[in-house]
């Protein structure tokens, strides 16, 4: 830690502002090495995909989430760094660790993690994972509220607004979409005849896939602040704020549109 702080290292800022999120984010990145090696060495498939593909995707997604939160943590008020916040951070870290260990263990056993109702234990684990997923998503809500309250971020008003709106929207939209996805019993709406997929992301090209809206909902914390950054650079303050509100509405409409599309059994492309 002292080494990281003594040189101009971009990570040192993250360590300082959010040590727990940074630590776990980097741990998940490091775990990509053995997971990728396992993907290469393991010939087993689950529902048409290599068994280690899903843990890899979740490690990438959750490390991006954690490191994004660690970047945004600098805009929280200093008063938000006491014990209560540290305990909350500890709960978030525990929830994410549970999630990746559960998904990794299911992959090692060549079985399902989400939607696994093969035994009492798997049903219980899936229920706990559901609670864990809502918990870990609430980290963005908590940080959004805390940044919203901070009047001294030094950011242009439009960028400040976009930052906390993006974080809050990530929570609200993800809970709506992922809650429905969980209740649906599978990520697909309809029977896929051949299993054709969008490369890398793996979304169905034949039937409705609720993971599209989940993906977009979760990335609100990137998309909206990006719009805010552009607006605050290009427009006068008043219009920039209006542009951020419009972008938030537009992005929400995009999420809900892809959500409705999937529920109607239609693929994205």
């Amino acid at each position, binding site marked *: 830690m002292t080494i990281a702080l003594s040189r101009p290292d971009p990570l040192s800022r993250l360590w300082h502002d959010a040590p727990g999120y940074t630590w776990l984010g980097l741990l998940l990145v490091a775990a990509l*090495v*053995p*997971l990728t*090696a*396992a993907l*290469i*060495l*393991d*010939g*087993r498939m689950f529902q048409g995909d290599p068994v*280690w593909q899903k843990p890899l995707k979740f490690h990438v997604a959750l490390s991006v989430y954690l490191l994004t939160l660690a970047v945004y943590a600098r805009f929280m008020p200093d008063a938000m760094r006491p014990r209560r916040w540290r305990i909350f951070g500890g709960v978030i870290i525990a929830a994410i660790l549970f999630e990746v260990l559960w998904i*990794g263990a299911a*992959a*090692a*056993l*060549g079985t399902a993690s989400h939607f696994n109702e093969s035994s009492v234990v798997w049903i219980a684990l899936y229920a706990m994972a559901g609670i864990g997923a809502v918990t870990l998503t609430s980290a963005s809500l908590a940080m959004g509220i805390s940044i919203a309250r901070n009047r001294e971020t030094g950011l242009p008003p439009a960028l400040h607004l976009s930052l906390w709106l993006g974080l809050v929207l990530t929570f609200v939209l993800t809970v709506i979409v992922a809650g429905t996805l969980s209740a649906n019993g599978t990520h697909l709406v309809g029977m896929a005849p051949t299993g054709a997929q969008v490369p890398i992301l793996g979304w169905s090209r034949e039937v409705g896939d609720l993971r599209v809206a989940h993906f977009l909902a979760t990335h609100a914390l990137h998309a909206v602040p990006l719009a805010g950054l552009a607006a605050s650079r290009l427009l006068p303050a008043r219009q920039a704020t209006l542009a951020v509100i419009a972008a938030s509405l537009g992005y929400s409409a995009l999420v809900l549109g892809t959500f409705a599309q999937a529920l109607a059994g239609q693929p994205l492309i």
Partner: protein
Amino acid sequence: MPPAPDALFQIANPVALLGWLALALSPLAPRLTQMVAGLAIPLALAVLYAALILAHWSTAPGGFGSLSQVMALFTSPPVALAGWVHYLAFDMLVGAWIARTAARESISHLLVLPCLALTFLFGPIGFLAFSTLRALSRHPGAVA
């Protein structure tokens, strides 16, 4: 198709040999040797080991509970390979520790070489030999 255990064995062995060659020549470049044999190669072997365990542990027979369970475990080629990689990685860490300790305590490399050879071939015997050598070297009037 994933690579066969035999093919991975054929790759892991020469990599380990490279590390042992570096250890044998360690007085020439002690720091480089420690980077290679004390860190880089064991880490690479550890990644291979971790991947083999992630991929094959859940379907392997046997277990740790009795000798016959351990023998059953090693009837699975990828798990037997993992066991072999475990030897390669940890023996080399012991070899690197021997080279480091011998240099620090100014023990003659000529006497260390047989200990390294024994560690390479029969791990614990090399450790036993080096520990003995170390104890004798500390004695007043010792030859080393």
